[in-house]
């Protein structure tokens, strides 16, 4: 599944504007950053309610396909600017993390492998 397909299917908004349409290789949801560092893989879609600078750092270091913020939780402008600098795609969705996982899985996105 590509990021553009995820946007079309979920109705998510891309907060970071224009983006390179990357393939999503796998998915993971967790709000503890060390768990994400342990499990994270390149081209992963990461669903998290955390929306601060360190989320962008983790996503950039591990080269994630996108970060998805559920339930339309607010993301401050400096965070979006940092993500744009680092070429990280941030999507905002009205759906809950659970609904997003269901949608990703139903469309063939695999879980991140055990780290």
């Amino acid at each position: 599944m590509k990021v553009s397909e995820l946007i079309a299917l979920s109705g998510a908004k891309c907060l970071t504007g224009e983006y390179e349409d990357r393939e999503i290789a796998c998915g993971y949801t967790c709000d503890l950053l060390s768990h994400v560092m342990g499990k994270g893989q390149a081209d992963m879609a990461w669903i998290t309610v955390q929306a601060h600078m360190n989320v962008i750092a983790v996503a950039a270091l591990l080269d994630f396909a996108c970060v998805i913020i559920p339930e339309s939780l607010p993301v401050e402008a400096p965070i979006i600017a940092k993500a744009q600098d680092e070429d990280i795609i941030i999507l905002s969705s009205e759906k809950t993390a659970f609904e997003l996982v269901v949608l990703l899985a139903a469309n063939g996105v695999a879980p991140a492998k055990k780290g």
Partner: protein
Amino acid sequence: MIIKETYPVAADDMSVAGDVSASIKRQMKRLGIPNQIMRRVSVCTYEAEINLVIHSDGGEIDFAISEDEICVHVRDVGPGIPDLDKAMTEGFSTATSEVRNMGFGAGMGLPNMKRNADGFAITSEVGKGTDIVMTFNI
């Protein structure tokens, strides 16, 4: 030695935590280090950097690349870890509730470092500081 750099890491400043790891990743990318190795080094440098910010009184990260090895040397000026075995246990953390609310303090930092490095050595003395050397085969 192809490259050797020292990056200072200040205590408590969460807003820049991750910047040193990002610089190190850029260096590796420039030098064409394979993605899998780059990923493991990034996990380790990031966890170390976060530990320096949230737990230490400040420290430094040395990053060195030679022909066949990457070496990351992390050291701080205190406060030191009283019980290393406990600190190495998954799930054990002394992080404050403030940083836990940001998603840190899962007690996975040191275990993540040990798991991702080819060589991992840690020493610590209360009142003096902690020293970690991690190596990665290229």
